[in-house]
């Protein structure tokens, strides 16, 4: 059995993180010590490792909660988890695409600002941001 401090040390997270995980329903204490401290078992440490790995792959805490539920559900199969992983990949690829578009828009603004010695009121970047759309640059 671990106290919250011991569990935090074992799982390499802060006690604040553990309290947050507990509020989010990701871990729960299995009992209390005679002094009234919450106690956690080895399964909590395993769940925290699971949460950290899943966060590393981009899953939100709400999605991780669903994965943890799936892990316990008898009727669930590996395909259910795989579909969630594929959907997460789709979301990430979508974000990457959106960020590439943002980066390209910035490229255009940066390229259009040829004279950086001009006063700020003539700044082409600020002027472009005030327009409703950033013009596409001919390649």
């Amino acid at each position, binding site marked *: 059995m671990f106290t919250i401090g011991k569990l935090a040390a074992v799982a390499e997270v802060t006690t604040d993180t553990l309290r947050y995980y507990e509020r989010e329903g990701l871990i729960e204490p299995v009992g209390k010590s005679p002094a009234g401290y919450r106690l956690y078992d080895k399964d909590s440490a395993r769940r925290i490792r699971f949460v950290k790995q899943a966060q590393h792959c981009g899953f939100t805490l709400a999605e991780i909660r669903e994965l943890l539920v799936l892990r316990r559900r008898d009727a669930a199969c590996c*395909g259910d988890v795989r*579909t969630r992983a594929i*959907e997460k990949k*789709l*979301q990430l690829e979508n974000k990457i695409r959106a960020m590439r578009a943002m980066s390209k828009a910035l490229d255009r603004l940066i390229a259009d600002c040829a004279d950086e010695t001009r006063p700020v009121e003539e700044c082409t970047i600020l002027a472009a941001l005030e327009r409703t759309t950033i013009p596409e640059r001919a390649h």
Partner: protein
Amino acid sequence: MKIELFYSPGCQECAAAQASLKAAAQQAVADLEWRELSVLDELDYAVELGVLTLPSIAVDGELVFSSLPTPKQLYEALRRRTAREA
């Protein structure tokens, strides 16, 4: 009309529904091109269409269903689309 069903390989729900959805689409549309795409093989295309959940259905390159419709819902959506295009 081109209908593309994006599925996750191994999805039992998709496999069970595919035949009835295809039949509904055939009923609704005369010039039907029906494609079943594994999202893992067509990831870039799926992202381009904005597919975020599986299974999803695109009609003529536009994402129309982001979860499996019933055959009736698909039939009605395709009929509405055909009427609009006519």
